[in-house]
């Protein structure tokens, strides 16, 4: 029964390697927890919605403060003018805004008096996610009908913000997929260095008068070239599959580039901590996959509970996902995404500095 002997040996190899065992058990567990928290459970999404009350009657005020503000799935903020609301919508701070036109209160009053009302609301929505927009539309429609005590649909004139191009599902999905592709640079970066470490080649290099930052830069630079090529290919493929880039393509490239630097920096940290590919590989995936989920690569962050969103926002990739979507879908300019770019760059710098510090420690033997 040689196969049983071999099986026993392999089993021992696994359970006597704490890291491998932790990976086998913790990885699926972590994923189940993340996905469970992210898209499961009973929590419902909350969308930021702006309201511009041009009617300014008692009834329109009640509609805003007593109806819309009480809808659990809406987080309502009021605006004084359409321009500032549009700006917030463009920057992704709100997903839609409701313009209550003059005469709204009078039409609602007609309904209360059993007359035929002609209730009109103007809804401007963020078209980047059609499913989210239609949910907001339905919610507001239901709210106004309940408030006005009418059973027929009210007129909600809709308009969307990014009028330059028609938004497709690809426009929403592709920016996330590109970030996921860049997250794969974490294991790629770590593998490159750890392979040399394991083979002993690193020891040979370490006997040369080379500084830690030179080692990290030398390994990273090759990967930066790969990252640049990867981003170009991803963008080209995205466009080929129907992604419309409304904003500046170079700005989108910049966001992806700094996100790529983050991945490489994290990979260098893992490489400095790992002794072998067997250690580095699972550790990298343990970092990259949960980050993909937390960052809204596959699902919008809005549908996740608050604490998951907060957790995701600690890391650079959620900022990269939202900034790239803002540029590609809404045509956001540098000013709108600059804080995200600074945050991601700071993360990349931090990761590289940590990698160099760990490498310096390693060089001291």
């Amino acid at each position, binding site marked *: 029964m040689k196969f049983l002997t071999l099986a026993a040996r392999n089993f021992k190899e696994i359970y006597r390697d704490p890291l491998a065992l932790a990976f086998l058990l913790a990885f699926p567990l972590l994923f189940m927890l993340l996905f469970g928290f992210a898209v499961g459970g009973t929590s419902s999404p909350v969308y930021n919605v702006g309201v511009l009350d041009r009617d300014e009657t008692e009834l329109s005020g009640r509609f805003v403060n007593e109806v819309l503000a009480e809808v659990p799935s809406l987080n309502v903020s009021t605006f004084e003018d359409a321009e500032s609301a549009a700006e917030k919508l463009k920057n992704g701070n709100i997903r839609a805004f409701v313009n209550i036109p003059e005469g709204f209160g009078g039409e609602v009053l007609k309904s209360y008096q059993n007359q035929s009302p002609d209730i009109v609301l103007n809804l401007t929505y963020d078209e980047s996610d059609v499913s989210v927009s239609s949910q907001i539309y339905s919610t507001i429609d239901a709210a106004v009908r309940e408030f006005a005590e009418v059973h027929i649909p009210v007129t909600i004139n809709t308009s969307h913000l990014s009028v330059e191009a028609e938004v497709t599902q690809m426009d929403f999905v592709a920016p996330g997929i590109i970030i996921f592709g860049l997250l794969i640079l974490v294991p790629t970066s770590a593998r490159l260095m750890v392979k040399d470490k394991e083979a002993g080649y690193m020891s040979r290099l370490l006997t*040369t*008068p080379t500084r830690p930052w030179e080692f990290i830069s030398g390994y990273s630079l090759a990967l930066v070239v790969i990252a640049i090529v990867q981003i170009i290919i991803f963008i080209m493929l995205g466009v080929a599959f129907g992604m419309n880039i409304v904003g500046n393509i170079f700005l989108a490239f910049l966001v992806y580039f700094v996100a790529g630097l983050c991945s490489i920096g994290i990979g260098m940290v893992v490489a400095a901590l790992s002794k072998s590919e067997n250690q580095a590989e699972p550790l990298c995936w343990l970092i990259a996959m949960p980050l993909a989920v937390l960052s809204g690569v596959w699902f919008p962050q809005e549908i996740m509970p608050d604490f998951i969103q907060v957790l995701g926002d600690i890391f650079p990739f959620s900022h990269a996902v939202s900034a790239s979507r803002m540029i590609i879908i809404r045509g956001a300019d540098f000013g709108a995404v600059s804080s995200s770019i600074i945050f991601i760059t700071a993360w990349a710098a931090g990761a590289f500095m940590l990698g160099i510090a760990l490498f310096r420690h390693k060089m001291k033997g």
Partner: protein
Amino acid sequence: MPEHRSSREADKSLAVQTFDLGRSFGSLIAVDCLNIDIKQGELFALLGPNGSGKTTTINMLCCLLKPTRGTANVMGLDINREAHSVKALIGISPQDTTLSEHLSPLENLELMARLNNMEAKKARKYSADLVEVMGLQERAKDQVRRFSGGMKRRLSIAMSLISDPAVVFLDEPTLGLDPQARRALWDYIGNLKGEKTILLTTHYMEEADYLADRIGIIDAGKIAALGTAMELKAEVVDRQTVVINAWNLTVASLDAIKGRYPEVKVNGGQVSVAGKDLDFKEITDFVHSTGAIIRSAYFKEPSLEEAYLKITGKELVA
């Protein structure tokens, strides 16, 4: 790490000088209070079995591993305090033939030269020269992953020489090579004698005997004996061996020989009699008297292997 300085005087003229150098891994003492002096231009061999502390010693001297005790000077520079400067003066060929497998010999050599601060033009010239010296010119542009073990070893040694270092560390340079390739590498290393200071580790007796100016026998992290091959063999010079090749060595004749002399080894038609103050004529006459027909007989020179056996009390298994 506690600062420890041995009472030995530092001698800046030495290429390598260790001061109670030691390294522990947890409770395991890999190298224990090592004190050796290697003169400039000398080829010094550390001879010992696997796990005796040879590679750990080299790794400390190359600033890859921090000593847990003591220190060492390489070309007068302290390995603990001046590691970066030490690295500019040394070259190493590690035990594992670690090369960039997808690069050519020229590319591998140029890389090491550039990392050793050599300017590009000079690096190209040195690389081309070394490729020729090592007999790799015909494969100079091939990827090294297709090379034989011997070629890789030669390239590995070339990489340790590319920066024109003052001190070269060769860790088991002929490990795993066939006798022919090993002999060829000995010639390459032999040619460096006098030009470079070389610290070579090996567990091949004949390698140390053939190449080294001086040999340090290392056992369980300690230097058990130190000297030239002749000096070490002198340890066993009072112990002689008479080797007799004979026909007609019957069971009765062998029993008679073994009964007369305390240390007798029989190997086919060869009888070796070992001991102190042996009388060559008396032994050959006695063997002849047992009915054996002697073809040849001679006194065997003491070997490094016998010296090693006497010094460490164990055989060195290659």
